[in-house]
């Protein structure tokens, strides 16, 4: 009997099996050259010949190793001129059991457990029929803007009345009215500089050519000096996270800034890996990244907390006040938290903060994406964002404070490709706007998905040049085409939002218009306080 070493790793243990047709293969080598993971290699094989015997010749072979496991990205298939090779998902793989030899599994992307989405069980069921007219999505004008900044109650507005006119007697906290879709924080480092640039170009184009005041968050990785000192800084939300990466340069650039940034976003947590700080593996800490961040070549693990902050009052006083003060109280300062069972308590505290300096509450749900995280966090930790946004909104309603700290929802927005519908539903439930990141990388060309495809953002081997600092890989990304794809998507998003607003008779955003939504799921309807229909 043949001796079988069952402890050896076999191709059948891997999550993807490379299906290869040697008879179609012309041995051009493009697939091997194109595979960034080293998942395939050339070798000698024996093929049956027409005379019933076999011949020895060169073939493409999959490597039986988790370190070089095929990620299913399909680059081999893309470059093969003969349809000779493609990755096939392996439902019987043993990755989850066997691949923890070097510690916890790390990867990028979104949660892969694929819980059913609440948003897909909600539909917009309140249609203007007879009692009031629907608007015309193509002909009416729509006012699609969302506030970012601390909004005072009407009684707190510093108005003086003179001759039947109201005037501002004092300064009020800064509030920007922006497009309700924010490009979420993906750092230079997590993204290649070129991918980050593509998103930034799309942002500028949408503002300057399309009239849509879309704002982009820098992520925790600093910003290019040229951008910090340009007029375009006003389109950017500068993020400060627990590692404070990039802030050395940002602070130095302050005196030379021509304009204020759109906002400052203090990242407390992230939906994809709540309780973890940012993570930039050493593989991605290329020299230019280290220069921007001011760090040595090492894996950059941001701490889970902002150091020195041991209470929410501390946070408000230290972080918010210092950030407000740094920009002369002219720039809204918002925070981003991972959605959690405690989110309402956090939001209540912020709403009741006597300084009134928190300009936005960004809530990031479990279906958000990341560049690098422990898989156990990605798949098993976090909180859905939909009910939590609703809870926060209703907590504000209970206190009559709705709208005072704008709510932004993220974490899986656009996961199915339909970001406008997701945004609209979240807005009806109480969000002022939404943010999304993963969708942008997908528009740039990322092939990762929530079914275990690719998700190699942490490896520095991103096959699309988006999440890597390897200059050869970055060349795969066409920055202009990528930016154009994002612009086109946002323009369609805008049209789709109008298509959803018009039938419910609204020309401005229906924030909190829960009466516009219905659900065919009774539990969801009850939880969210919307109509159950069947």
């Amino acid at each position: 009997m043949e001796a079988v070493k069952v402890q050896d790793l076999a191709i059948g243990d891997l999550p993807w099996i490379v299906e290869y047709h040697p008879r179609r293969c012309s041995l051009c080598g493009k697939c091997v050259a194109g595979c960034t993971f080293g998942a395939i290699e050339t070798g000698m094989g024996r093929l049956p010949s027409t005379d019933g015997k076999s011949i020895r010749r060169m073939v493409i072979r999959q490597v039986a190793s988790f370190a070089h496991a095929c990620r299913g990205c399909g680059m081999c298939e893309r470059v093969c001129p003969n349809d000779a090779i493609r990755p096939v998902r392996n439902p019987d793989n043993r990755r989850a059991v066997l691949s923890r030899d070097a510690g916890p599994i790390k990867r990028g992307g979104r949660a892969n457990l694929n819980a059913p989405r609440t948003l897909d069980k909600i539909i917009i069921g309140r249609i203007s029929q007879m009692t009031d007219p629907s608007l015309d999505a193509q002909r009416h004008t729509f006012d699609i803007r969302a506030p970012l900044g601390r909004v005072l109650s009407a009684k707190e507005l510093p108005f003086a009345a003179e001759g039947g006119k109201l005037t501002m007697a004092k300064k009020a906290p800064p509030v920007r009215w922006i497009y309700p879709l924010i490009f979420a924080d993906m750092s230079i480092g997590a993204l290649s500089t070129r991918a980050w640039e593509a998103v930034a170009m799309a942002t500028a184009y949408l503002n300057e050519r399309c009239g849509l005041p879309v704002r982009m968050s820098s992520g925790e990785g600093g910003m290019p000096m040229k951008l910090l000192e340009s007029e375009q800084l006003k389109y950017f939300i500068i993020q400060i996270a627990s590692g404070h990466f990039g802030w050395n340069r940002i602070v130095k650039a302050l005196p030379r800034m021509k304009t204020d940034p759109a906002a400052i976003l203090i990242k407390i947590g992230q939906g994809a890996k709540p309780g973890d700080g940012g993570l930039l593996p050493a593989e991605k800490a290329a020299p230019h990244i280290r220069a921007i961040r001011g760090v040595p070549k090492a894996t950059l693990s941001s701490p889970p907390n902002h150091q020195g902050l041991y209470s929410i009052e501390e946070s408000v006083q230290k972080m918010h006040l210092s950030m407000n003060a740094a920009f002369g109280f002219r720039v809204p300062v918002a925070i981003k938290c991972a959605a959690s069972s405690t989110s309402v308590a956090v939001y209540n505290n912020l709403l009741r903060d006597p300084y009134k300096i928190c300009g936005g509450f960004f809530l990031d749900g479990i279906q958000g994406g990341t560049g690098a995280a422990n898989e156990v966090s990605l798949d098993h930790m976090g909180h859905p964002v939909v009910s939590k946004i609703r809870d926060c909104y209703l907590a504000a309603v209970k206190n009559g404070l709705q709208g005072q700290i704008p709510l932004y929802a993220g974490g899986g927005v656009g996961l199915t490709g339909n970001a406008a519908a997701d945004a609209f539903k979240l807005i009806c439930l109480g969000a002022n706007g939404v943010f999304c990141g993963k969708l942008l990388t997908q528009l740039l060309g990322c092939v990762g998905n929530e079914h275990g495809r690719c998700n190699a953002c942490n490896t520095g081997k991103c096959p699309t040049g988006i999440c890597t600092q390897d200059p050869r890989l970055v060349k795969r990304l066409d920055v202009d085409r990528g930016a154009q794809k994002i612009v086109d998507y946002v323009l369609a998003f805008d049209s789709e939002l109008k298509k959803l607003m018009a039938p419910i008779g609204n020309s401005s955003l229906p924030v909190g218009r829960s009466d516009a939504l219905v659900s065919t799921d009774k539990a969801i309807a009850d939880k969210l306080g919307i109509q159950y229909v069947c």
Partner: protein
Amino acid sequence: MCRIGAVKSKNPVQPSTALRLMLPQQEGHDNSGFAMVMQDLYGVFGLYKDKPLLSMACTQQGGRLVEEYMDAHRFVKMSEWLPVPDKRKGLNIQAMPYYIFRTYDYPENVTDPDEREALLLDTRLTLRQMLTETGEGYVYSFWPDVLMLKEVGDPMDIATYFHLWDDNGCLVAKNIIVQSRQNTNYEIIRYAAHPFFLQGYTLCANGENTFYTKNKEFQKSLHRGYIGFESDSQNFLYTLHYVLHELKWPIQYYKHVITPLPFSEIEKREDRDVLLSIRQSLSHLEINGPNAIIAGLPDGRMMTCCDSKKLRPVVVGSDGTTVAISSEVCGVNEILPDRDTSKDIYPGEREIVVIDNDLEVERWKQ
């Protein structure tokens, strides 16, 4: 679409004038009810203009409950007018057993004007709650120089029932705001019919408020008097009260609250800081949907405006002695046939029109 109307005159008029304003406009459901608010009263209440007047419809038990409450809270009854109904057969009216219009003097220990205002509101809210819980009636208003009647049925028959066609000089006022239907969208209950009234502010709104839910959720926490919400049009009254009575902003800012300018227009304005602040602080009071509004203010002025797309009509006509505001011009033609129609005003979508007590018309463009 509800048809709404108002008459403001230098010479006091009787309810039949308001009825004649409304009846030509009738269409569809516009014969399902009748409601009016009379302000600046003459006739039987002319001598008691400074005394709060309670308007209610109730059962005998309800009347007794109210009387006991008012006595216990040291209100002193001054005068009363109980309509003697025409109970002929065949009238389409779902009448209550008693209609009580009664003036009181304030409890002697309450002399401060603000305290008195608060007391009148709290008393009405308590009476309303009492009558609702017991199912013994409805209290509509409790305010000096203001009378309110609401009833379900055909307005012509309701007028017959109350002898309003007789012009007998009992109910006479310089200002009447009126509507002749029930709110047919939801349950037919008396409180759901316009006009709505709160602390001297009266309002009718013709249309749909598609931001009803967010308006309601916000208003509930703004003021104890913002209750009921039986109709999506009550929001307009509460916002009017909030802007003028609570915030004490000039009236033209009401329009900026309910139908704010688009951001692109605000940006071009010199007062953009003020307008943006209003828009962001009161975004939950914005209305979105087709509407026209007619309102009466505590000082007797009247106001009208409509939605930002002008999806619902309203017209203002005057013959110099009387101003009529109405959803459709046929009503104005009925009561002011000899006016100069070229001077009729059809307010624009960005306009707010105010008629003062000398019938001078002020128009503000937003």
